[in-house]
């Protein structure tokens, strides 16, 4: 890939990240504001957003800090809430395993739900593009940390996301990105079935394990079933690479 193509990929990555980046600014801001209320300093909340970069577990830890929860309890909650990333990473492994390990070491730091959604969709459509992946990763990361910083300084100016329905932005993005994957009846069935199971699991537990459960179910169905739908995805990438 020449320099011009790399630049085009960078720009495309930024363009594709803008809608989610805007939401990150708002939700990062809310995190910064709430963190301040729990007694965290601006530096600590920004450090957390920069170094952990995992919204759901960051939000989950805040009330635990107020309640005086144990150190390892909070670390374990973070681990279990983020355990869904084991599966996300595994679904990307056929692509990243062919890359330089250092690139995988770097990108793993940025592998949030949203980064996963955007970059997986891109890989499926256009193949593996390091510049694009790096662009999306850095941009989203920056906006989450920036939002946290702004929220801890000017959080009182932020709109209530529930009042204006801003929390729907993530659902809309995930939905728009997933439609392209529903290329056969079996895929639609797995998608709907996993959605139903995720709802049931989500009602039973608020720890985020429903994502892991639904991912495992989808994996099991795909694994048990004979490869028959053309292997769009991991195998499709092989065709592109070949």
């Amino acid at each position, binding site marked *: 890939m020449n320099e011009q193509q790399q630049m085009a990929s960078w720009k495309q990555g930024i363009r*594709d990240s803008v*809608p989610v980046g805007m939401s990150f600014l708002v939700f990062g801001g809310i995190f910064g504001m709430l963190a301040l209320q729990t007694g965290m300093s601006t530096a*600590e909340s920004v450090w957390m957003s920069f*170094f952990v*970069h*995992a919204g759901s577990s*960051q939000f989950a830890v805040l009330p635990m800090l107020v309640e005086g929860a144990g150190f390892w309890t909070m*670390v374990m909650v*973070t*681990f279990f809430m*983020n355990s869904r990333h084991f*599966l*996300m*990473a*595994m*679904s*990307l492994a*056929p692509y*990243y*395993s062919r890359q330089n390990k250092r690139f*995988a070491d770097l990108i*793993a*730091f940025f592998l949030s739900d949203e980064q996963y959604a955007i970059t*997986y*969709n891109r890989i499926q459509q256009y193949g593996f593009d390091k510049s694009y992946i790096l662009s999306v990763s850095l941009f989203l990361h920056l906006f989450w940390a920036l939002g946290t910083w702004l929220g801890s300084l000017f959080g009182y100016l932020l709109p209530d996301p529930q*009042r*204006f*329905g*801003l929390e*729907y932005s993530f659902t*809309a993005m*995930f*939905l*728009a*990105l*997933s*439609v*392209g*994957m529903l290329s056969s009846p079996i*895929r639609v069935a797995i*998608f709907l079935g996993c*959605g139903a199971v*995720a*709802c049931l699991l989500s*009602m*039973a537990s608020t720890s985020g394990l429903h*994502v892991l*459960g*639904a*991912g*495992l*179910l*989808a*994996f*099991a169905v*795909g694994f048990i079933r004979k*490869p028959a739908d053309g*292997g769009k*995805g991991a*195998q499709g990438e092989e065709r592109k690479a070949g």
Partner: protein
Amino acid sequence: MNGDLRMFLLILAMGIVTYFTRRAFLTLPESFFTARLKNGLDMIPLGIFAALIFPSLFVKGGEWTFNPLYAGASVICVLVMIRWKNVFLGFGISLFLVLLVKFLAPVSA
């Protein structure tokens, strides 16, 4: 342990376990990927995406819920995606619809 150091170590530990969940399986030996395993891995995003979408539409506070606005916007998002296959359009139109209705009728919507 003083409070500042405890917080620093807590964030460090949270970051390390999070990184571990993301890095552990991101690269695997090529021989690991049998056709059957690839087929299973290929389906994982469907489950992950479904779990990120459906509970946000139908579960609130551990109970079933139905928000006609979000459901309607989601149907429009799917229809736009089927017709134009444009993520920006699907995302933008459905979110704009939600923001517009909420802005015009913030209490009832």
